């Protein structure tokens, strides 16, 4: 957990919203290479908006730099190609497509070789998905769909994975399993991850750094340790 890692994603002065409604009013975050960063924040604070702004899904101003390249003006497909994959809030599964097709869909930006090998790799990590590879994704349980959504995002071979409230609607035990997987992806594969969570206790356990978002800007940030010791954050998000 050295804080001296090279920055992977740098967001400065990010402003974004919907039409006339400004949601983000100058947001700064930095995700370092190889770390798990967590963004905490109440409902409606702008967490999803931040994720969508990074992925190029909504208009935004400010600077977003990824591996030294500016991506504020790039379209979503270019951003995926640069190495950022997002698991959207609510999972965004292609419900009418089979499990295997969902994974191939995730590899849309890639060409030919390696896709089959990656399929096998993720079927190895998520054996339940292999069992259901020919079934429509809409028939999977919530936990399975979340695993599928993560595997699908990983099929694009991202450097940075964005996960928007992965625990939403899942049983605690499934959520636990999910965070174990995310932790393993980080430690074993060196994948950098930015997770949006409301379940702060759980997220802090695997986080290196933490950002606290309140109504459109970051009000506190630091290492997981620092944030856990911050009294204001403790009362607001950790409940003790």
């Amino acid at each position, binding site marked *: 957990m050295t804080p001296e890692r090279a920055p992977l994603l740098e967001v400065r002065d990010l402003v974004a919203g919907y039409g006339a409604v400004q949601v983000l009013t100058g947001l700064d975050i930095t995700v370092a290479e190889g770390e798990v960063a967590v963004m905490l924040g109440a409902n409606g604070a702008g967490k999803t908006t931040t994720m969508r702004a990074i992925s190029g899904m909504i208009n935004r101003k400010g600077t977003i730099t990824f591996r030294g390249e500016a991506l504020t003006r790039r379209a979503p497909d270019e951003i*995926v190609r640069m190495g950022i994959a997002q698991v959207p809030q609510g999972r965004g599964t292609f419900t009418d497509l089979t499990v295997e097709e969902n994974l191939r869909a995730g590899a849309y930006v890639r060409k030919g070789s390696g896709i089959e090998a990656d399929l096998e790799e993720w079927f190895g990590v998520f054996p339940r998905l292999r069992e259901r590879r020919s079934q429509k994704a809409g028939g999977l349980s919530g936990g399975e769909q979340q695993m599928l959504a993560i595997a699908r995002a990983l099929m694009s071979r991202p450097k940075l994975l964005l996960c928007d409230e992965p625990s939403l609607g899942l049983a605690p035990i499934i959520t636990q399993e999910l965070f174990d997987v995310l932790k393993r992806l980080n430690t074993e594969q060196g994948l950098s991850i930015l997770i949006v969570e409301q379940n702060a206790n759980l997220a802090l356990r695997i986080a290196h750094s933490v950002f606290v978002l309140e109504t459109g800007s970051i009000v506190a940030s630091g290492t997981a340790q620092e944030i856990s010791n911050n009294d204001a954050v403790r009362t607001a998000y950790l409940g003790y």
Partner: protein
Amino acid sequence: MGHLLQYILNGLARGSIYSLIALGLVVIYRGTGHLNFAQGEMALFATFGAWWINDHGFPLWISILLAALGAFVGGGLIEYSLIRPAAKKSPFAVVVITIGLFQAFNSLSGLLFKGAATGLPFGTLFPDAPSDFFRLPGGVIWRYENIGVLVTVVIITVLLFVLFQKTKIGLAMRMVANNADSAKLAGVPTNKVLMLSWALSAAIGTIGGCLVAGINANVSLGTMFGVFLLASAAATLGGLDSPIGAVVGGLSLGVVESLVTNYPNDWWGSTYIGADTAIAVAFVIILVVLLVKPSGLFGSTRVERV
């Protein structure tokens, strides 16, 4: 019973055409949720185009292919220049645009092609001499042309199936149809996919238009009205977002139409029951199906808003 089979075979030919126009509607609807009210008139315009090329001495099949190619390009351009900007405003704006296009293509056909109002002679790709038919048991005949039309629809359906299920472009189209946001996040250039949907739809419509004109041996400004009505009914019956539903819907409505127009004539020897009654019966059937199964026969359950 000989009559029944005869009427079914006749109905399948017209039904094939409904299927093609319905397929065009479905290809667009899946991607965008838009109903292209101009589908029939775009096909009509392209059919006049095929007539024009043919009139300049090109073989009919080449004329039809060229017209379909032109429609492919034109369909893409329409999406890019009219539909896309309108869709940014509101879904209602798109409806207005497609209704405007309906009018525009009909008027343009009338302006550009002399004699379009009364009708221009249109050839057929299939043998259609009076003796060109198979004799089936019970005195039933199956005309080569009717077989040809049906086979054309089957081939196009199979090609579409292969496109959707076996190619990367097809996968992208299904991704956009199923969840446009997620498709974007996966790196699909969704705008290009929508443009392709319109292009493909216009090309399919052209084949449909040329087949109707072939069967009628004539193309006029009114050729596509009834066809479009039944085709949109067929697409609704099939579920709006299901290609196979469009084909099944189109063929069944063709058969229903044939039975409803022919049997009363046989029984009562009158001709007062015509195409209008067929359309009315078709819509009653659709109403009943949608009451029982709001998403249509083959539609995904997401399509319940119509």
